[in-house]
């Protein structure tokens, strides 16, 4: 698969490492070029410095050939905007966005974006641990 990863923070760079193991073609976008230092040395994909919802940046990152877009910056609004640009302007079907705010995650998943909400996931997992029988 040709995959675009937007946001090269801790999650973004870990995601890239994981995807590399499955031999996918990866492009990474980040607004801060130093973020690319987190990528493993063996990374052979493309890096593009720029804003993930800017159409020119996405085109540079190869969005016209992309099969999927993973959007994992630390800003919910930026992630939503990038997801919508990928879906509506470039017709990418598989668009996944990490969204911290549970209500925003819920609302936009109803609008057709696959959202992963660490807040909800963490709360549920901690709850499970706390309620475990000793």
């Amino acid at each position, binding site marked *: 698969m040709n995959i675009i990863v937007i946001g090269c923070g801790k999650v973004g760079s870990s995601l890239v490492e994981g995807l590399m193991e499955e031999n996918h073609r990866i492009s990474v976008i980040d607004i801060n070029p130093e973020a690319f230092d987190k990528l493993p040395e063996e990374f052979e994909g493309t890096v593009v410095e720029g804003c993930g919802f800017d*159409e020119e940046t996405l085109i540079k990152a190869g969005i016209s050939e992309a099969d999927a877009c993973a959007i994992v910056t630390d800003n919910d609004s930026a992630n939503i905007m990038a997801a919508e640009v990928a879906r*509506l302007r470039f017709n990418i079907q598989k668009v996944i966005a990490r969204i911290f705010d549970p209500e925003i995650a819920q*609302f936009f998943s109803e609008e057709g974006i696959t959202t992963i909400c660490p807040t909800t996931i963490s709360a549920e997992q901690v709850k499970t641990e706390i309620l475990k029988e000793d």
Partner: protein
Amino acid sequence: MYIIIVGGGKVGYFLTKELSERGQEILLIEKNPNRFYKISNDFPELVIHGSGTETHILRQAGIGRADTLIAVTGKDEDNLVIAQLAKKKFKVPNIIVRVNNPKNFPIFHALGITNCVSSTSMILSIVEEKLNIGDLIPLLNLKKGNIEIVEIDLKDGAPAVGKQLSELNLPPEKLNIIGIIRDDRIIFPQKETTLLTNDSILFLLDITHKSLLDEVFGLTS
């Protein structure tokens, strides 16, 4: 009308001031604590502290009964989220959005948010007019950005000068002449109206047919 404004920067601040002076019911939402503090000194009852991207803040602001929501933060991504929440989740009838980077217009339009204002675009239009960089001056975007009202100023020597409107062969299903401004007077266009140098012609145009204007008016842009 109950109007909620998100973003207490210069635009939001002066909008709040103007609209409340005109007797409208306003609430401003501002997330920066320092800005909030300053604004609440000037308009104590008109501002709440919080982020307009958070639904509990929007509910606190009474978004359920708002007639208009204006998103004028400095970040297009926030304005996009706020506008969508207001329009689709809370069904606010009127949404007005500030778009800071004109390159972001298409995604707003694609999501059905059509009342978008970019001061950059507006000033660009004026600069283009003053520098004569482009002959076509876009005045207003309508209907998902494909329909525009544009202005052409007829310069000396333009091919259309001296011709009657009926001679120009402009297909009415592609563009409509709304009016002609001549010497500060409005002229209602008739088939026999003859175009003169310095006439400003206002068109309602589907921009996919912009090239028609190039052909008829010999535009240089």
